[in-house]
């Protein structure tokens, strides 16, 4: 991964009295695939539009390769974007759409046609070059939008939820196309999405935003396994979050009182959590084991099976503990067969102390509720 390409320093955006983005700091490294993820209205698209110059920051500074670019107009930047609506020009055909950026930069006609053709070929849509936009399928339009943005060979590509209009299997195919393109071109991709599966499948790093603020920046693994706050823990993945109070701390082992009973977790030397603190315990659904008999483990609780759902070969099993809490467990479907699941069947859930991630509870005030 290269050096910092974009630097956002205390960048904020307000529309009138409404805050879209709180002062934020972010570094985007040259050549990385960065996903900005969050629920709708979290400020992710506004951030992207500020990079493209379509919104002017109300505060702070955006630098590109060390140069302040706040005042640069959109057309003075090389930050082509793939739009959620695609924004293809309906009165131009495929080739003319792709040539648009070159034409605006005064590239001569013959060269324009040649370069557009190369990109149409690369994205396997050269046979549609003379078609109207209206006569293309969703996936083909997607490729036209990509070709149109990339034809000027920019150092960065901005993508604003480009796959949200496609159906599931097309999304997977386009993800492969995007990952391959990014690796081959070696340019920075900044990808805004509300979909975890897209972000986790493609990104080198992920920025999680909520209500105009950055909640966490990290690799997919960090975000998934080491969420820094409850919002991230809840937003990402199928984590189980159990509230509790620390009852003891000795030799790197924490014991917490929860509705379930005592849950044990590991605790680093520098972790400032002490007995009496309220904590949220995060347990990844895929890290919980299920057995028919009680097992000697750090954490083992009886629970009744109450239902399951499938996505592909992954099953999400729902259990109800004696305290009435629901716990979700993810397993490969073939692993579940030996359990002979039936509604209400009593089983045991267990997990090791090192799989529990312990978060100091924020007060409700901090959470902005």
């Amino acid at each position: 991964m290269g050096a910092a390409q974009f630097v956002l320093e205390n960048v904020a955006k307000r529309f009138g009295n409404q805050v879209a983005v709180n002062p934020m700091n972010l570094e985007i490294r040259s050549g990385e695939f960065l996903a900005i993820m969050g629920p709708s209205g979290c400020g992710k698209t506004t951030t992207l539009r500020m990079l493209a110059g379509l919104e002017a920051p109300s505060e702070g500074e955006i630098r590109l390769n060390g140069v302040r670019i706040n005042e640069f107009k959109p057309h003075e930047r090389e930050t082509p974007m793939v739009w959620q609506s695609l924004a293809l020009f309906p009165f131009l055909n495929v080739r003319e759409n792709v040539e648009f950026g070159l034409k605006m930069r005064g590239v001569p006609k013959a060269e324009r046609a040649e370069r557009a053709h190369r990109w149409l070929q690369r994205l396997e849509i050269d046979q549609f070059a003379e078609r109207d936009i209206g006569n293309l399928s969703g996936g083909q339009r997607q490729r036209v939008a990509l070709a149109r943005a990339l034809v000027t060979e920019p150092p960065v590509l901005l993508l604003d939820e480009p796959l949200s209009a496609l159906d599931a299997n097309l999304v997977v195919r386009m993800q492969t196309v995007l990952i391959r393109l990014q690796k081959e071109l070696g340019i920075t991709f900044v990808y805004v999405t509300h979909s975890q599966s897209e972000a986790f499948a493609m990104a080198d790093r992920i920025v999680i935003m909520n209500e105009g603020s950055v909640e966490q920046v990290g690799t997919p693994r960090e975000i998934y396994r080491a969420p820094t706050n409850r919002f991230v823990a809840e937003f990402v993945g199928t984590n189980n979050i159990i509230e509790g109070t620390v009852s003891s701390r000795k030799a790197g082992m924490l014991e917490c009182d929860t509705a379930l009973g005592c849950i044990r977790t590991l605790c680093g030397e520098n972790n400032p959590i002490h007995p009496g603190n309220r904590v949220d315990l995060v347990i990844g659904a895929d890290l919980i084991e299920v057995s028919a008999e009680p097992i000697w483990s750090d954490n083992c609780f009886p629970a009744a099976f109450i239902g399951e759902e499938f996505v592909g070969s992954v099953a999400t099993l729902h259990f109800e503990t004696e305290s009435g809490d629901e716990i979700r467990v993810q397993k490969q479907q073939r692993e579940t067969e030996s359990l002979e699941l039936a509604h209400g069947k009593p089983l045991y859930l267990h997990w090791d102390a090192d799989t529990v991630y312990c978060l100091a509870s924020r007060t409700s005030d901090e959470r902005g509720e």
Partner: protein
Amino acid sequence: MKPRHNMDIYALTWRLPVLVWQTLFFIAPLVFMIAMSFFLVKNYRMVEAFELVNWMKMFSRDYFWDSYVLSLGLAALATICATALAFPASYALAFMVSDNIRRWAIFFLIIPYFTSYLVRIFSWYVLLAEAGIANGVLGYLGLGPFTMLNTAFATIVGYMALTLPLVVILQTLSMANIDRSLIEAAHNLGAGRLRTIVSVVVPAGKVGLIVGALFCFILSFGDFVSPYYLGGSKPPTLTILITDTTKSGQQWPRAAVVAVTMMATLMVIAYSAIRYAYNRRQP
């Protein structure tokens, strides 16, 4: 931190044309006309001044008030006629035909506005004449002949030619947007067709009905052709007064008095009508 669009020439380029043009050639004339109503005429020449003399002269003449009352009365009559005549047609178009037929009907109702109003009035002149076609048809039925030209009846026919299609369009559009379930609910509760109309359709389509009536009033009140050619111009309406005063000499300030009075009247009526239309309950 400086605002990016401090002097946005591009934005101004698009904003200014209408401002400049309409200020120079729409607002300025209207303001000048108001000013002109205070000018004097000496030796057949207009002199810029600020005197109330035109206002006093016009307002003290009986013929002005006769015209004023006549104009108001005719326009009010036209409004009542148009609203009443249009309502059954709009009701039928809104509730008893398919969307497609309604679209076509509205298209055909727009067509008259692209035919010369003058020519249509001439046709009515021919139709309504003593030896004209209406009397011819009535003659076959053993009726008539009736004197229709140069009566208030003919003026109202002219006004209907001018306003009826528009009133039908406006009423239809407002009634077609009424939630059908309201009407079905009324029927379910045992309301007959007439009760449903009075208690559901009219209140729900109120805005459209009033806007239609208002347009009819404005158009009729400002029309010069029908009262002049069909109504026989005696006694004159305000519009005929303006035309005669302007066309036959230099008494423009007095014409301006009439025009300003008309505008003021229309503004009061339009304002009350729109307030009434959007108020839920009127004491």
